[in-house]
């Protein structure tokens, strides 16, 4: 009897337990309303209170995962690889874009720019997002390296915005001549600010790359994991959910075994 009651209590506790969803601001458009719409939807769908927790960059998020301050998080591939063991993580689901869990690194510039590729930005002021961001820093640097150039000497100045959407803003304000940004963030930004993005153009598309996953700590209850996963996947099944996905520039969330980081 006591066992039964304690089992029941533990189940209830498991159901009622609040989950913390880690969000790295570099990875999403800074629109708190949209984020709360997402967490509200997930809370309802998973029947569990899901509360967002923000980290400025991937390093901070990695630390939060290791310290178990967040239960599941939206991180970039590099962070997953780095923290997979230290934070004991597994992949919960992937965002899909144009039917695939893939995204690109975009080189963007003002509409009037004459640049036709990344190489046309030599001796210009260029924006990277987070120094560890794949699309926002690593991809363009690798590209230049493959041409025998180092980003430090190639550009006149590299400005780190630590945020894809801020890189977009930096281009719009004319502070930088171009920027490398995540295609998902760019799409999301376009949905929210259609008139601003009319002043921009995509110079080059590099990739595709596996989309940044939603990772979850392995020690979270499987039932809970399943419910949260199901909640993510149910976003594309409803009008409200699809509206939220559009704001993130994402078509749906789904799981695939076919990934490579």
């Amino acid at each position, binding site marked *: 009897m006591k066992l039964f009651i304690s089992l029941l209590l533990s189940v209830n506790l498991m159901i009622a337990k609040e989950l913390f969803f880690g969000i790295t601001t570099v990875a999403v458009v800074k629109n708190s309303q949209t984020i709360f719409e997402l967490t509200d939807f997930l809370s309802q769908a998973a029947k569990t209170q899901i509360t967002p927790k923000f980290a400025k960059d991937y390093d901070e998020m990695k630390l939060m995962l290791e310290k178990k301050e967040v239960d599941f998080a939206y991180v970039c591939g590099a962070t997953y690889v780095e923290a997979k063991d230290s934070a004991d993580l597994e992949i919960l689901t992937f965002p899909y874009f144009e039917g695939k869990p893939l995204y690109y690194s975009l080189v963007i510039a003002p509409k009037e720019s004459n640049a036709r590729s990344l190489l046309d930005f030599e001796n210009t*002021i260029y*924006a990277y997002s987070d120094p560890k961001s794949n699309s926002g820093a690593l991809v363009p640097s690798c590209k230049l390296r493959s041409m025998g150039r180092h980003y430090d000497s190639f550009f006149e100045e590299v400005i780190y915005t*630590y945020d894809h959407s*801020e890189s977009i803003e930096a281009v719009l*304000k*004319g502070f930088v001549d171009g920027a490398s940004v995540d295609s998902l963030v760019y799409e999301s930004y376009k949905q929210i600010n259609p008139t601003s993005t009319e002043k921009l153009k995509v110079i080059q598309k590099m990739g595709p790359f596996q989309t940044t996953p939603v990772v979850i700590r392995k020690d979270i209850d499987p039932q809970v994991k399943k419910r949260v996963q199901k909640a993510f996947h149910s976003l594309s099944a409803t009008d409200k959910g699809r509206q939220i996905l559009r704001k993130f520039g994402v078509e749906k969330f789904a799981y695939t075994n076919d990934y490579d980081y």
Partner: protein
Amino acid sequence: MIKRWFFSLPISTKLALSFLVVIFSFALIGGATIAMITNKNITQTTDRFIRLTYENNREYLLKNLLEDNKWALFKFVDSISDNEIISEALLSINDKVVAHSHPAQYRVNSLLSRQYLQQGQNFTIDIGSDKTAVLTIFKNPHNIYSQVLSNIKSIVIIFIFMALGSWLFAVFISRRILDRLKVASNNIDVIKKGEWAKIDTKEFKEKDEITVLLNSMNTMAQDIKSNIEKIEHLKDFYHNVLSSFELMVIVFKSDFKTVYCNKNTLAGTINTDFIKDFCIQNKITEYEKEMVEIKKEGKTFLLNLNTFKDNFIVTVSDITELKELEKKYSTTKSLAMLGEMSGFLSHELKNIISPLKLLIGAKNLDQYDIEVMGRSIKNMDAFINNFLTFAKPPQNENAQQTNLAQGVEAVLFLLSTKLHQCGISLHKQLETCFATIYSKAFEIIVLNLVLNAIDAAGKSGTIGISTYQEGRYVYLEVIDNGCGVPKEVQDTIFEPFFTTKTNGSGLGLALVVRIVDDMDGNIALESKEGQTRFTVVFKGEK
């Protein structure tokens, strides 16, 4: 031209423009004053804001400068310049741009001139390693002009509302004025037409000059109505009075348009057209006054014309009966006079021939007797001659245009010796005037009147004689300063054989009357103690 255009505008537009100009002028002055005060406050506020901005963000700036976080620094300068009081902001290290609020103009790492930096307010941040960062803030140049421009939309909207308000107010005021003026105008029309019942006596809330004018007009209209009614009443009264006379009364304008004609009994024989034609044909209206006899259809009418301003007032009366009476009277008088004269003649002749009768029976006639007989025959001869002269006064064959003054001068010449002998003081006022009369007969008139005057005035007396023309008529006046003709004999003085003189024939004045009458003239006597005046009147010639 602008003045003419303004005066031709309707009242409501004039008022609206006037209100607008006044309100706009006051608004301009008020606005400029407020703008000046605001400008001063803004400058003080701006300086305070800038200082606080630097002080409150100094640590943040230092941190990001040390971390070389240019994006964060750009966001800072961009945010503080995004207001109305700061136009530009920049961070620089050793005159090189770190972040500028106009990144397109001032790129990162571009050099700045000292002159440019001195245009703003500079705040230094020591970041170590001999490097000094400078936060430079450029204030928005605030002046009244820029303030106006920045608020131009509000100003235009307010002005439109003011204009609308002014126009509505002006329409209201002008409507109130025009409504009352319309009432006044309508009342004037109604008064002109005499439609007294239609006068609008509406009361207005306003107690201003226009309402006073309106009330005065209404009072005046009532007075005019009352006066017109009185005049109409008087008109009827006098028409009835004039129509009660057996007299035709016509008033013509100077162009012979009939102004008035009474109801009269002469309408069957004489009408206004006949009178009008008669006056024109006979040129009667050439004189201010005229009296003419008209014979028509066996009747005689007397036309009397008087000129009054631009009107001719003509009265026509039927004197047919009067003429008949006059004729009868004349015949009766003539018969009476004949009887009198016969009696007088018989008496005088009897007296004259009585000495002869006494001498018929005498047997021996001496020289004295023959002389007596001779005197009696002579007296009879003289008497008969005088009588013959009276009976048939001298006449020219034709009446002719005679100068009265000339006639008088001729007679006075003849009497000059007698006048001198009598010591008579003679006063002449002889104007040249003409009448168509018998000139010799006229001289007889003058002679008789002057001789009478000499007798009346006596030795060293005074005689006045004058000829003049007044209107249609010419006058001869003879005045003496004798003792005058007693009232009781003034009516008989012109009768034949009447005399107050011892040796008078009594035919002198009777002859004068006869001659004057023959020449269609008139003679009048005015006499009192010390002055006797005989006035003879004839129809004159121009």
